[in-house]
């Protein structure tokens, strides 16, 4: 499957977003980098254009407050692949006691991305085809005491992508769900991550690209996570609720 270009990357400042932009540009796809205070990404834009024979553009974007349809309509070039990388881990302990923080985590991981991808779906459907890629999380596979505010929002995103895939299956729009597991990025800097379960932004980008090309639906970046989350899913609730996971 060839990659519909240009590629819009929502959340292009993040480490995973940057790696994904490089991976697509290396494939020869034009890219649109969308982020807050996008002027800062001018250096990334020129870097991409020096490295690869592609066009790179910038677009100001905030997953929380802009209007999705107006944002997409304002783009100079209409994207054919839309990648949603936006996410916010937040501080779980703080989210438990601070409604504003919890709301921010929920909106950034579910409400905002779902609204934008819904708008993207309308645009791609009207265009006659394309691809939507959402970076969700293994944390959404089962709510756990240690991160269920983030996890539940990601669970929402996973369910949203699953339903959207179903909705668009006959409309020539591929919908791909990516579940990275632990990734060594600025978001996880300082956390102790188990090496065997941890991947890099570059690996995530490689997997995104190959999964899109081979028409996959749901992909765990490290396959071991599928097994781990399957086992975690099997634990009966009466036992699960007593575990500290």
């Amino acid at each position, binding site marked *: 499957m060839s990659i519909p270009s240009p590629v819009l990357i929502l959340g292009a400042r993040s480490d995973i977003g940057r790696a994904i932009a490089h991976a697509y540009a290396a494939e020869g796809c034009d890219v649109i980098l969308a982020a807050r205070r996008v002027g800062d990404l001018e*250096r*990334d834009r*020129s*870097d991409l254009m*020096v*490295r690869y024979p592609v066009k790179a553009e910038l677009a100001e974007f905030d997953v929380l407050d802009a209007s999705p349809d107006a944002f997409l309509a304002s783009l100079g070039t209409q994207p054919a692949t839309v990648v949603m990388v936006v996410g916010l881990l937040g501080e779980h302990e703080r989210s438990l006691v601070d409604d504003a923080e919890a709301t921010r985590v929920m909106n950034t991981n579910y409400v905002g991305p779902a609204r934008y991808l819904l708008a993207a779906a309308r645009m791609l459907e009207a265009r006659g085809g394309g691809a939507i890629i959402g970076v969700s999380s293994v944390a959404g596979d089962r709510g756990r005491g240690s991160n269920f505010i983030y996890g539940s929002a990601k669970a929402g995103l996973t369910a949203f992508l699953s339903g959207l895939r179903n909705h668009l299956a006959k409309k020539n729009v591929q919908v791909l769900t990516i579940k990275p597991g632990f990734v060594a990025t600025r978001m996880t800097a300082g956390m102790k991550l188990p090496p065997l379960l941890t991947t890099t932004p570059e690996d995530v980008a490689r997997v995104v690209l190959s999964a899109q090309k081979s028409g996959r639906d749901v992909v765990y970046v490290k396959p071991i996570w599928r097994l781990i989350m399957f086992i975690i899913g099997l634990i009966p609730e009466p036992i699960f609720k007593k575990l500290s996971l």
Partner: protein
Amino acid sequence: MDRFVSFDDRAGTVTCEAGLLLSDLIDVVLPRGWFPPVTPGTRFVTIGGMIASDVHGKNHHGSGSFCDHVLSLDLMIGDRVLTCSATENGDFFAATCGGMGLTGVILRATFRLLAVETAAMRQRTLRLQTLEQAIDAIEASLESTYSVAWVDCLASGGNLGRSVLFLAEHAQVNDLSREHQAQPFARRRGRRRRVPIDFPTFALSELPVRLFNKAYYAAQRPGDALVDIDTYFYPLDSILEWNRIYGRRGFVQFQCGLPLAESRSGLRRLLEQIAQGRDASFLTVLKRMGAQSFGLLSFPFEGYSLALDFRATPENLLLIDRLDAITAEHGGRIYLAKDARTNAASLAAGYPRLDEFRAVRQRYGLDRRFTSLQSRRLEI
């Protein structure tokens, strides 16, 4: 910090952030007909590091060191960013090129590239029985763009300095076979191997290395051949984590330069000392250096440079102290980029402009802001 800022592929100049890896630079510029004008023996270095060490390559005798091709750089000293070049903030430029990061943080650099027609090298291999023959052969081939000799440092007596000399030029399109002429910049992506474990101590003891060196010497066929650019410049890069062959204790490097007039006698004494130690590595490299560059602490100067690795053992550290002494007695100097153990006196003996370097640091208060374990050990 690893972004390209601009690349003029007509003029062959690049501006990039200092954290860009040389291997990424090559991947981008080589397909468009350009190559770094000077490259060290590994691609896994940053442009900032190449400037801080003012690295040299196998072409120093003709092309100088890396900083000879740097047009300008941006240097952050505390809260200010200075643009430095030969004509602007020249004192900073001369101190920063080869200055081991002690003058500030290099943010960006602009440098020239070398135009090439292919990603292949025309290599000529010569086997030389003795040190004298090796030096004669190197002196006789100074017009060759690239020149480097591998030395069997365990050979002694009549075989002292037994070497294999590799001369090379960038291949032109019509040097390639017809099938390769259509894609002159195609690179063979050899399989990368990774050293899976720390080697046990005996693996690098005398006998295996002696056998390896003999076999390696015998295996080098004299004559001409076309070789891949990566194979010629970066033989070790295809073996990831190669340092693990030195075992858990790791290794130390030694590299010195000797003035031309003292090179034959000095190299003989160094090699005798090393052969006596019986514990040197299989990778000993002899290079002819050209004229001294402008960097105040820049290493290369006219003469010969000898580089080798040792297992990190107490005996070898003592041996390297003796090599320091021989180097100093012959008016030579030690390469800061390879050093992990020398002392202030040995360093100062080889660098007549060290005081100028210190003066630049003091003038701008950099001596209090930027230090390293090495700068404190060597009182730079």
